[in-house]
């Protein structure tokens, strides 16, 4: 900028919490994560989510969840955490050898 700027009012001393937003796009489908937003409370979070994420009828139902309420697996433990499933190929139908003439299996 050409001229020095006056300091603006700092954004509110206390930040509005972050909410994760989930949208059910139509009946019969799961709610799906679409993004996040800031809002002071749950009611405002829902209204903001409607305006930000469903301006074109993208949803028939909305969930907002405080981001702090989400417990996530750690990417660092990805291998050890998900490994137990890796060596159990017998959980998949393709594991089994079935004679070709056996139908509807």
């Amino acid at each position, binding site marked *: 900028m050409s001229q020095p700027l006056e300091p603006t009012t700092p954004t509110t001393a206390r930040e509005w919490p972050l909410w994760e937003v989930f949208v059910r796009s139509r009946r019969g489908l799961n709610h799906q994560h679409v993004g996040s937003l800031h809002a*002071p409370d749950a009611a405002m979070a829902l209204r903001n989510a409607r305006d930000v994420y469903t301006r074109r009828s993208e949803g028939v139902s909305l969930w907002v969840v405080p981001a702090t309420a989400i417990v996530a697996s750690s990417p660092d433990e990805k291998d050890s955490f998900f490994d137990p499933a890796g060596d159990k190929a017998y959980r998949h139908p393709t594991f089994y050898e079935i004679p070709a003439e056996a139908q509807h299996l």
Partner: protein
Amino acid sequence: MQAGFDALIAGDERVEPRDWMPEGYRKTLIRQIAQHAHSEIIGMQPEGNWITRAPSLRRKAILMAKVQDEAGHGLYLYSAAETLGIDRSELLDLLHAGRQKYSSIFNYPTLTWADMGAIGWLVDGAAIVNQVPICRCSYGPYARAMVRICKEESFHQRQGFEILHTLSHGTDAQKAMAQDAVDRWWWPSLMMFGPPDDESPNTAQSMAWGIKRFSNDELRQKFVDMTVPQSEVLGLTLPDPDLRRDEATGHYRFGAIDWSEFFDVLKGNGPCNAERIEHRRRAHDEGAWVREAAGAYADKQAARAAQAGAA
């Protein structure tokens, strides 16, 4: 850790927020996504300027929806940036302090109604060409935000084209107004793709990281090739005497871009730089009481709920 990251990039897989990533990758993304988000919200100003003067209720409703979309796009992008460990409030403070940039295109004024058409057709058109490849950006949240944005931009470009088409098939004065707007927005739109490849030092690294998929000059050429035939449909000319189709390659060759103007506007000397930031800061300051009131209301409701629970 670096090896895991390199493997994701090499496999053209997506990097997600909690994955380890090199500091340079994180910083580059924060800078780029923030600049992109700032552009969306500063971009509301030149168009907001015409909402009260739209020529019909139909045009007014459309323009309001478009400006609201820009706000929404800003929010998608701030949300993506926050997954990199920076707060939206911090990004806004950086914008207000002039320490992060927004697209220079918004430092040009919107002088007539036809500018709404030219912005939709050319500026949003250039933005789409820039943004479509970012839908495949290596950073997941940015790519996902871009998918949403690109879906919505298409309406922006088409409504702009329709405005210009209507004007250019109207009275002589209306057609002249459309032509004047195109004359003023054409070159700045070409500059939106950034400096030429040999003067764009960060391109190679961004491409290696899968943040950028095409170089500035490639995207610019793509835009010109798409746009010239559209100008013929509009019945308007583009202000470049050197513009001609190269029969051998099928590409349109265009004249030299005045990069001194680009760098001058970037430095802050464009017609509206000071006005845009000033307006943005004022809007932020004047909205402070609303944010405080909403916070106070939330506190009161929470306290009441706690009391009712205790009783």
